[in-house]
């Protein structure tokens, strides 16, 4: 027993050191700022409230983790069997101890529950800053996002623009199955459910100006993995400029490839599904293309919006993203190039 006794402090130190090393290593990794969809670098007021809560629970969990696992490890090493048939004292329990580890965790959980519930109610109430909010309706489709700004008369797809410092109130719904709207930098996800409208709000930080990634977070069928989006947090001036640009009808194609492409487009099946404001194209099944040339990606954030990619997409949408609703008659390579030139010109 004396041998074990002298071993004890060293064992405690050792096991705790190992566990702290593991948790600390974990924490550094948990904070990977280079991941564009990281959930722990909030760029909005709502995101920060969630992060504060997460931080509180996380560090409590680390303490409990180190305590419990350390105690377990220590116990196993300290009381491992050294010879067969050892007699050990037959404790059956200790009511005081057991009441203690019923009450103490309850108190710890209460410390989590109170800020949790207050945060729930803050998120459920109208946003605290209501001066000049930006209202956006988000509609999930298999497998792309439609963004409508009802007060600004802007309709776009897959790329959401918001001004820094102004509260965005988001109404989320779906045109088909359940999706989930999620831009981790701004806060948690909200499900897009047909027949229902869910709401959330957040105010992008001034420091968050730039491009952020998001994607559908509720399994929605074949191409769930490729239902992505971008959020651009703009400065106030840039946002206003963007709105002015997006409100305008499609710029008339000048000449050359783009103009040939425009004529081709108006005669094609494209107009049954897509809208280009100011033209005959008034379909509502696919994304609004009025300013498609101003977007950075196509196919719901899958590929960059370059003339080559666009032409490839038009020639073989099922090859790029199997199962998507865009089913076309075969388009010749030269026609595809014309289409792409036209669409690229829609800025």
């Amino acid at each position, binding site marked *: 027993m004396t041998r074990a006794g002298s071993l004890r402090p060293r064992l405690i130190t050792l096991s705790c050191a190992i566990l702290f090393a593991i948790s600390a290593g974990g924490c550094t990794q948990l904070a990977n700022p280079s991941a564009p969809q990281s959930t722990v670098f909030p760029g909005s007021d709502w995101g920060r409230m969630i992060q504060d809560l997460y931080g509180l629970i996380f560090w409590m969990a680390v303490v409990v983790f180190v305590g419990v696992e350390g105690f377990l490890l220590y116990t196993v090493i300290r009381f491992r069997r050294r010879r067969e048939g050892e007699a050990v004292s037959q404790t059956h329990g200790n009511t005081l101890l057991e009441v203690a580890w019923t009450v103490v965790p309850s108190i710890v959980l209460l410390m989590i529950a109170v800020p949790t519930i207050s945060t729930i109610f803050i*998120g*459920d*109430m*109208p946003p605290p800053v209501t001066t000049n909010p930006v*209202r956006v309706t988000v509609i999930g489709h298999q497998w792309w996002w439609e963004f409508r700004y009802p007060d600004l008369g802007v309709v776009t797809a897959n790329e959401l623009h918001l001004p820094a410092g102004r509260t965005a*109130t988001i*109404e989320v719904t779906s045109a088909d199955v359940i999706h989930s709207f999620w831009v981790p930098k701004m806060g948690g996800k909200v499900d897009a459910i047909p027949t229902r*409208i*869910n*709401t959330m*709000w957040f105010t992008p930080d001034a420091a968050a100006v730039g491009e952020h990634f998001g994607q559908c977070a509720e399994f929605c069928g074949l191409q769930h993995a490729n239902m992505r989006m971008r959020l651009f947090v703009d400065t106030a001036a840039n946002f206003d400029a963007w709105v002015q640009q997006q409100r305008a009808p499609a710029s008339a194609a000048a000449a050359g490839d783009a103009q040939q492409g425009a004529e081709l487009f108006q005669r094609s099946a494209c107009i049954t599904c897509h809208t280009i404001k100011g033209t005959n194209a008034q379909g509502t099944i696919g994304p609004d293309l009025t300013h498609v040339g101003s977007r950075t990606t196509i196919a719901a954030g899958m590929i960059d919006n370059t003339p080559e990619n666009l032409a490839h997409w038009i020639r073989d949408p099922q090859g790029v993203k199997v199962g998507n609703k865009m089913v076309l008659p075969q388009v010749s390579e030269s026609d595809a190039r014309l289409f792409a030139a036209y669409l690229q010109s829609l800025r």
Partner: protein
Amino acid sequence: MSAHQPEHAHPGAQQYITIAAILTFITLVEVSVYYIAALRPVLLPVLVVLSAGKFALVVMYYMHLKFDNRLFSGMFLFGLATALFTAIAFIFLFHLLQPRFVT
């Protein structure tokens, strides 16, 4: 845990018929209150109480839970209570509780 409940502990035919008379009476009341316009505002609680009474009478006397081993009551009531809790929760979730923030 008590041993066999002797069979003669079950009530006799006379009591069964009395219960049936009460059940008939409650059913008549139920259907009549349904047609009394003045009772419309309190129809819901009245009907709930009356049908709960019918339910309890059948369970206690015809199914003998009043006389039988308490284990049976426990098994049945546990299921019933879970079902009731779930049903009430659903009514809250779908009809009574709505998110406040709706623009």
